[in-house]
């Protein structure tokens, strides 16, 4: 089990009701974190339509996560 800080943005934050929380997960990749927190962020979009960062660096969904990491879950962006 790893302790991961998960941060939710925009619609994910609204759905989760918190902007971040600490969770215990059996997760080896960022995608695992996304899938295992689905009940929190509520994304009906596949991960491919969303983005992820680990410890404030943009990452791939296949990027490994370590105990103590902060994983930022970004719903589809809409700048401009």
């Amino acid at each position: 089990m790893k302790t991961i800080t998960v941060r939710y943005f925009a619609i994910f934050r609204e759905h989760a009701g918190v902007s971040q929380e600490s969770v215990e997960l059996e997760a080896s990749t960022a995608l695992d974190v996304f899938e295992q927190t689905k009940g929190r962020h509520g994304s009906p979009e596949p991960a491919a339509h969303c983005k992820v960062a680990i410890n404030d660096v943009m990452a791939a969904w296949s990027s490994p996560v370590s105990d103590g990491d902060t994983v930022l879950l970004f719903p589809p962006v809409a700048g401009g």
Partner: protein
Amino acid sequence: MISISNTAIPVDELRKQMAAPAAGGFCVFEGWVRNENEGREVQRLEYEVYEPLALTEGEKVLAEAQMKFPHIDAICVHRSGLLEIGDCAVWVGVSAAHRDEAFKACRYVIDEIKTRLPIWKKEHYVDGDSGWVNCERCANVAHRHTDPDTEGS
């Protein structure tokens, strides 16, 4: 240089900042808040920006533009917070020796900014409803459980 601003973008000052005696072409793109989106009347708009990564990713975009179009100078400012109809949400200015590079670099920057930076736009409609742009289906499934097949995009 990219920055995020919580207040009105100072377009006139930004233009003056870009003055350069060797520049012959200057291209600006501004994104304005429209009163309508996909058939719904918009009243105001709210930008949520995750600033640390918006800045690093934005600087990457500008560096890429400078690799593709050497000798350009570029500035980008993106708003955060609440915006009204007509407000400038994003400003991209590019100066270059000639117009071709100015146009192409400006277009490159705004296209990448729109799809890569962690920025989200919530529209507040005249009818009192609201929704996150690009995330209509999320919004609907999460909160209203309507059929995703009936949604636009």
